[in-house]
Structures are given as C-alpha cells and as structure tokens.
C-alpha cells in the first residue's frame, strides 16, 4: 500500500522529466530544421570535385632515421603522403600547447628529431584546413598557421605542428594510439632521396644532399573545349545573351555586365573574371575556403592537383598538378589553376584548358639533377645573388610534344623562386 502510494507520483515525475529532456534535445538540434537537401549535380561534376583534404594536402614526406639521416619519401607504387594521411584519422582528446616561439634551435630540434616523419605543406595553411586531414578531430584547437607536421614514429601520444615564419613549434597531445600502421608505411615500396632540413636565406628548406635521379614523363592530356566552360561559368539565370569577341588568338565571352571569360588559343589558357560582389575576406582560412569554392565551381579535372602557394599581397592562391610528388611548372611559371581576389567586386580565376591525364610509357632513362648545394653554388658562380634565390623546389617542366598536340613532355628540373617568379634552373643558367 505504501509502495503504490508513491508509485504514481514517481512515474509521473519520470514522465515529465523525460518529456522535458526530449523537448530540449529536439529544440536545440539544428537537424530538426534542416530539410533533407538533395544536391542535383551531374555525374561529371561529382567525379571531378576532390575533397578539401585532397587538394589542401601536404605534398612531401621526409623520414628521419634513428641515426638522424633524412630522406624524402618519393612516390613509386603508392603515394606516400596519402598513405601517411590514412593513419591520421583516429586521434583522440587533442590538447595543444606552444612549445617555443622565435627559436630556430628548438624549431630544428623538433623538426629533425630522430625516428619521425615530417609532412610538408607547399605553403602555409591554417589549422581549419589541416583539420580536414585528421577527420575533424582537431576542430576545437585554435586556428593557428601551419607549414609542417612532425609525426614521431616511436611516440604515440604526441605530434608537432610547425610554423615557419616565426619558428613556432606547437605540441599536440593525443590519447595513446597504435603506431603500427604508420611504421608500416615506411616498409612500403618507394624510392628515397637523401635530404636534410635546414635554413636557406633564413627560411626552412629541404635540401637534397646528393644528385637526384628523376624520371621524365610523357602524358596524354585532357583537352577541354571552350564551350564546356562557357556553359558552366556564364550560364547564370540573369544573363540570357552572351556576346563573343575575337581578337587574334583571344576569344572573349561576356554577359554584358558582370562575367567575362577569355580564352587564349595559343597557350591554351583561360581567364574567368567575376565582377559580382564577393565576401572579400582576408584571413588565410577564409581565403582558402573561398578559393576552394571557386575552383570546384569551375569544373576543372582535379586529379593530382594540390594547393601550391598563397600570396597574401596579391591574394593569389595557386594550385599545381603533381607528378610523383613533384609540381609541374609551365614556361610562364604558372601551374594548373589560380584564384585571385582583387577587391570586393572583382575575382579572377586563371586556368589551363589542357591538363595531364594519363601517363604514357617512356623509354627515356632517369635524368640526373645536381644536389641543392651544387645547384645554388653554380647559380651564384653565374652571378646570381644568393639572397634573390628565395625558394627552391624540384619540379617538372611542361613542354608540348612535337609528335602530337595531345601529348606533353614533363622534364625534371630545379625550380627557383627568383624575383617573384618561379624560374627553372636551366632558364636561369642560360640567361647570362
């Protein structure tokens, strides 16, 4: 009797509390208001859009052995960076702290620590961008700038993030995890190239310490027609009439007011100018996000296309196609696609109409390139000031093949950022 006296009030209380909790959960959950949106994209578009973690990916992996020797892990049968990224999805409870700032000694102590793999971005990215690689596990960490990531292969609770500009080292502590898969990557089939990581003109740079063997390539290109881009880019609702102007090798499509698309038939390049108002945001994260939106809208094949550089002065983001982990440079220094925000009502996208698609067997043997030191020394002997040679990269030169317009030759060469332009070593040596 006593028991049943309390039973009903108790059940009532539980029912009331339960209904209150469920109401709160339902009201605060945004999914409740979201309609199940169906994105109607054509199959072609879907297949060409590569996720952010693909485009904004580190482009080079360097392994430091137990004895401190370093080597670049060059892609052969597998893409080494992709394989390493696969091991980075499961970090738990990340906590970050700043280990040091403005100390080159500390910076290189962490970067060159024994038994570690360093992943290098081509240029500075932000934590929000890096977060895409670790399956959003780092979303709560502050939005710092990052150039390199150091993964110790013998310490499963730590990883380090490096920012080159002021030699900042951040330590991220994570829950203990297995390093088996990371160490397995080191056993995979790849080529290695002896290297060392040190300063060049006060900028951390990967030096190649012996002469480099690189494979020249022949590629079949994917050739897009002008019409494809005209229909994709100028086909907005408010414009019904598109005018066309032709001048020599230039064809200019416009919609009278805000959009203009220019094709150059000689060098097979295109430029899309958008004079509609834009967000005009300046931070690194939002620039990268806006740029990503623009290139996905473009519909360019993004196979092996990676973020290459961001110039905050001109607000230009450059993307290049990578072969074996090395970027492709055209004679003009241009890559595959670049986006630029000029002001709040002007954006410009430059892109290539031809893009490498299928590699073809080549009987040419490997080409030997000098080590970084030798290359720099030769340039200085030629009369160049070492201070002007700001960045150096191994890359491929884009050259039209003489036998067919659908083929290109990719020849390995050193590339040097000289007077605000990427120039090949061969071109610089032949200039004087």
């Amino acid at each position, binding site marked *: 009797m006593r028991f049943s006296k309390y039973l*009903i009030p108790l059940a009532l209380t539980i*029912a009331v509390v339960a209904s209150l909790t*469920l109401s709160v*959960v339902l009201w605060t959950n945004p999914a409740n208001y979201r309609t199940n949106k169906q994105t109607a994209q054509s199959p072609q578009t879907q297949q060409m859009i590569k996720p952010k973690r693909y485009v904004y990916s580190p482009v080079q992996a360097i392994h430091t052995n137990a004895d401190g020797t370093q080597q670049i892990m060059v892609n052969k049968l597998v893409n080494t960076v992709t394989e390493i990224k696969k091991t980075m999805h499961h970090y738990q409870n990340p906590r970050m702290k700043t280990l040091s700032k403005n100390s080159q000694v500390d910076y290189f102590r962490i970067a060159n620590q024994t038994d570690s793999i360093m992943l290098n971005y081509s240029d500075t990215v932000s934590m929000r961008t890096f977060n895409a690689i670790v399956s959003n596990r780092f979303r709560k960490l502050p939005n710092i700038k990052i150039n390199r990531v150091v993964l110790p292969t013998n310490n499963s609770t730590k990883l380090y993030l490096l920012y080159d500009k002021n030699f900042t080292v951040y330590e991220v502590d994570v829950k203990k995890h297995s390093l088996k898969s990371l160490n397995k990557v080191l056993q995979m089939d790849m080529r290695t190239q002896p290297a060392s990581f040190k300063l060049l003109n006060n900028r951390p740079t990967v030096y190649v310490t012996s002469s480099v063997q690189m494979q020249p390539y022949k590629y079949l290109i994917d050739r897009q027609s002008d019409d494809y881009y005209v229909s994709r880019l100028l086909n907005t609702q408010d414009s019904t009439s598109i005018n066309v102007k032709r001048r020599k090798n230039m064809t200019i499509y416009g919609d009278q007011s805000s959009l203009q698309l220019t094709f150059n038939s000689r060098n097979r390049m295109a430029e899309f100018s958008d004079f509609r108002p834009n967000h005009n945001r300046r931070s690194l994260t939002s620039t990268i996000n806006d740029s990503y939106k623009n290139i996905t809208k473009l519909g360019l094949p993004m196979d092996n296309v990676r973020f290459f550089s961001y110039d905050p002065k001109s607000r230009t983001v450059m993307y290049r196609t990578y072969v074996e982990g090395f970027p492709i440079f055209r004679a003009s220094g241009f890559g595959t696609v670049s986006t630029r925000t000029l002001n709040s009502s002007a954006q410009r996208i430059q892109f290539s109409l031809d893009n490498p698609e299928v590699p073809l067997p080549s009987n040419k043997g490997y080409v030997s390139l000098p080590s970084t030191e030798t290359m720099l020394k030769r340039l200085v002997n030629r009369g160049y000031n070492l201070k002007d040679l700001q960045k150096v990269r191994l890359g491929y030169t884009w050259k039209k093949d003489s036998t067919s317009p659908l083929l290109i030759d990719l020849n390995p060469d050193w590339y040097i950022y000289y007077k605000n332009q990427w120039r090949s070593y061969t071109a610089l040596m032949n200039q004087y």
Partner: protein
Amino acid sequence: MNFRRIEIIFLVTFIAIDIFLFGMFKKNMDMQADNVSQGDSDSVIVKEMRNDQIKVGNLSKKNETAYYISGEQSDVLRNQMGQLVNQTPQFVGHELESELKQPITVDKNNPRKSIDKLLTDSTFVLFGDQYVYSKNLSTSRNIVYNQKAMGSSIYSSEAQIRFTLNSNYQIVSYTQSYLQGIKSLRESSETISETRALIWLYQYNEIPNNTTVAWASLGYTKLLSIDGDRVFIPTWIIAIRPQNSTQVQLKRINAFTGGIIKQTDENLKNSQTSMN
C-alpha cells in the same frame, strides 16, 4: 481519491507525449544519418533502378586502388614456343595458336581445377602462372584465362589464354597472347566503387529497363597503343543482360574518372560473341 485520478490522467498524457517525442527524436537521428553519408543517396538511386525493373545483386561500396599500367607486345612467345610439347604451335599476329596432338581431359564439373594445375607446367603453356581464370568470360566449351597485372587482371584479347574444349570435355586447342614487362605508370590512386560505377552507367542512360546486371568486375582494359606499347586503365566492366536473353552486353566505366568508355574494344567483344 480525486487527486489520485488526476495524477493518473496526467501520467497517461505525459507517457503519450513521451512516446510522440521519442518517435520524433528517432526520425531526427535517421535524417541526420541521411545527411552525413552519401551512401544513402546512392541506395536511393539503386532503389530507383530496381523500380525500373533492373535486376541488381549486392553491390560493393568499397573504393579500391589501382594504377595506370603499360605492357609491351613482343615476340617472346614465338622465341620460346620450342619448349612446348604435345602440340603444334603457330605464331600468328602476336598470338600463339596451338592444337594439342593428344587432347587432355579435364574435370567435367570443374575444368578450372584441372587447367590451373596444367598451367604450372611450362611445357604445356608458356608463362602459365601469370594468368588467372575468368569465370565471367568463360563458358562450358571455352575457358578463358586473363593475364594478371598489379593485383588485378587484364581484360583484353592481347593478354589472354582461351582453351577450346570438345564435347568430351577435352582441351583440343588454345590461343595465347601475352604482354611483356607489365609495369605501373604512376603511383596507385583510388578508384570509384562498384555502386558508383553502376549508378553512373545508369545515369548515362546506358542500362535499359527490364535488364539484369549479370556481373561487374574491376579489371584493366586497353586505353590506347603507342607502337608496341599498350596502356591500360582500371575499368569497371559491367555486363548487362536483357530479360529473356542470354546475350550479354559489356559496358565500360573508367574507374578513375567515372566517365563512360564508349568505343567497345573490338577484341574484347569478339571473345564475348564467341562465348554466346
């Protein structure tokens, strides 16, 4: 007593509210899952296909990895055919055609088992260990083996062995083609999944209504040839059979880009017609 009744009424009402709210909560969760995984929009399309009377078996959603590969057409078969015994080999247009002097009996129910064993013998077939049985291309009288390449196999008459059986389940002859120096041209990349390949084929309007998807397989097919070199790309090969028909139509989807490969490889087609 009156108060107790009020309590009971309240209790019943709140339990009803709870049930309703829980139902909403559950639905909400499902919706979220819908938004997160793209796989669900895929299954919607697969359902749509089934509504169009297209019979599809279970499809894999796994993305695999594959390469661009190349191989070279060479005369190595001709150079080494002297070592073959009990047969009269002829080398015609990069193909080795051989008639057996003494037919070899194979297992009636499982000819593959017998032939697999025979292939290890290099006086019977050259480079036999480099070929793998293809269930899809074989029929009871025509057993097809494809050349292996980088963890998969090549679907091309330029890299194949075809055994012809007589009515007594005896191998009477075979033709062999072989590509030398198979190598990858670039590091591996991810391919699209079987489900995606089929969906794209469907969205390109290449699967008519009232058909059955007989099989789908990821293999290498020829993209182009330069001199003696052949370049192969990973391809989803999808076989479609109209209902009430035994004829199979082969469709190819580029497993890297998802594009349809329109021109049908003449030779691949020939091997198909011969099986029907």
